[in-house]
């Protein structure tokens, strides 16, 4: 927590840029598909993840993000395409031979083993001596601040503690890539925020590639160096959080990441002369007395604590506007003029399927 986040992000971006140019990617998916019968869970996905990157697979449930993670881990095999890990084709390599470890959503701690043996499990199957593996496990446990818990059973631990054990169990094997499946999904809000920063710090300290799956866009944007947004088996957009948020490439991304307003192409044609959909962030719209760019009818409002959100009907299109707390909230049914700074309106390519 010593460096300013934006500074770290830009440093990371520079690192990443050079990494992409000079090194082989840590993980790359080459037109990978995974079909379950008629369902195309993952469909012709291409993805390169650089070494040392904190990468998020973001999307709603059923979008294919978890299947993607399972393909990298080796729990699923692609219907077609190749999974390449550090330049080596891992498509036909079973999970126990991949330099990749996973933190499971339900943690998957072995209930019959105590915490120490859970963490030492991977070293045990590798054939390490008891003393050596227990020492390594103790070190891994202290890395996640669970030093005194070695003798307990998983059932005696809280959700947050179990998650740290799962983390230690994966990290003790010194994987080149750590996969995290909804790592914070089962934790309560307070713990989740704490774990977010801990995970981020851990990743920075260890320099390992982290790939994590989440449906929470806030989590993805705050933690990841880069985000891939999934929808119905396809990647809609890959980019740094700021890019994805400010410059969504498709209406789906605009809507899913930060609930942006999506203006239909006919409206954009009137405003900007281009017949493509565009996104407009609710917080970038202002109410104005004089000539606005659009006129809307107020159909609803909600108090959000730090701000007010009003819902508008603009010629059949529904728009949200975020008003600062200091601004007056217009009455229901009144007409308001809307305006925004040039450049706030971000034109997109159409939805690709």
């Amino acid at each position, binding site marked *: 927590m010593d460096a300013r986040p934006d500074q770290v992000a830009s440093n990371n971006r520079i690192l990443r840029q050079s990494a992409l140019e000079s090194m082989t990617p840590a993980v790359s998916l080459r037109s990978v598909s995974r079909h379950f019968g008629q369902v195309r869970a993952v469909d012709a996905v291409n993805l390169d993840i650089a070494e040392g990157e904190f990468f998020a697979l973001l999307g709603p449930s059923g979008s294919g993000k978890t299947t993607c993670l399972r393909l990298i881990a080796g729990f699923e095999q692609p219907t077609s395409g190749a999974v390449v890990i550090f330049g080596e084709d891992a498509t036909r390599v079973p*999970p126990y031979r991949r330099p990749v470890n996973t933190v499971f959503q339900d943690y998957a701690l072995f209930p019959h083993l105590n915490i120490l043996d859970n963490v030492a499990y991977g070293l045990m199957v590798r054939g390490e001596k008891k003393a050596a593996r227990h020492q390594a496990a103790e070190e891994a446990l202290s890395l996640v601040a669970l030093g005194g818990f070695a003798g307990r059973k998983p059932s005696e631990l809280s959700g947050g503690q179990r998650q740290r054990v799962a983390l230690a169990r994966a990290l003790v094997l010194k994987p080149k890539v750590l996969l995290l499946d909804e790592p914070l999904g089962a934790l309560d809000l307070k713990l989740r925020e704490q774990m977010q920063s801990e995970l981020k710090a851990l990743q920075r300290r260890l320099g390992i590639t982290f790939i994590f799956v989440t449906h929470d866009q806030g989590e993805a944007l705050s933690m990841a160096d880069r985000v891939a947004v999934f929808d119905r088996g396809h990647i809609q957009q890959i980019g740094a959080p700021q890019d994805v948020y400010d410059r969504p490439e498709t209406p789906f991304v605009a809507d899913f990441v930060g609930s942006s307003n999506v203006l239909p192409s006919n409206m954009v044609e009137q405003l900007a002369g281009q017949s493509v959909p565009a996104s407009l962030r609710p917080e970038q719209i202002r109410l104005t007395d004089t000539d606005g760019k659009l006129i809307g009818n107020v159909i609803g409002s909600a108090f959000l604590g730090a701000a007010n959100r009003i819902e508008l009907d603009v010629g059949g299109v529904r728009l949200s506007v975020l008003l600062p707390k200091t601004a007056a909230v217009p009455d229901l049914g009144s007409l308001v003029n809307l305006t925004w700074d040039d450049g706030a309106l971000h034109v997109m390519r159409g939805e690709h399927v």
Partner: protein
Amino acid sequence: MHSKASLGLKITATCGLLFLHLPILLIFVYAFTTEDKSYQWPPPGFTLEWFGVTWNRPDVWEALGLSLRVAAISTVIAMVLGTLCAAAVARFKFFGRETISLLVILPIALPGIITGISLRSAFNIADIPFSFWTIVLGHATFCIVVVYNNAVARFRRTSGSLVEASMDLGATYFQTLRFVIMPNIATALLAGGMLAFALSFDEVIVTTFTAGQQQTLPIWMLEELVRPRQRPVTNVVALLVVLVTFIPILAAYYLTRGTETVAGQGK
């Protein structure tokens, strides 16, 4: 809803439980009666004499020995086959999965006499003489389901991600089997095995069709029931059978306590 049961319900439930247990308790009394010609109640006196008499009966020992051997081997076969089947049904989705679970249940869903006479006609057709192994063949068949039920329940309760986690941490299928799957299903298998043992030890309907001249303990008892010759010895044997079957049942209960709701279901 009231959290307390009405008096009527309490009384009927208690009477129901008594109805289930009093007849078995009666066996305990009769084993000590001095009366040896009839089933007289109340017993005219009590004695330990018949335990000694039974102890010196070679036919009882022989029947007991055969029953124990049949039960042991049938249990082993049923444990292997039932576990394999449970693993396949619980861990895979495949065409015909429902049919397999039905096939496993069929030998106990259909009356035992069907299994018995079917096996007997098959032995006749295939010209297989009756032996120890023909008894085992029948017993193992209907014991599979008991192990299967226990194992399938445990497999379903054991999160599938445990296997994935093990392989993710570098364990092969065989290592995963040894270090993760076996420790997690062991008690369920043991419980299933105990119940299979009790089931086989007690079985009579199928056995009469597959045993030929051999006498298992239940067949010995059945003959005494149809044509009573030594009532006191039968009383003592009945008591012993109750005690011998209670041990594996209680063991199975303690092995699966708190993990499955109904471990022994589907006898």
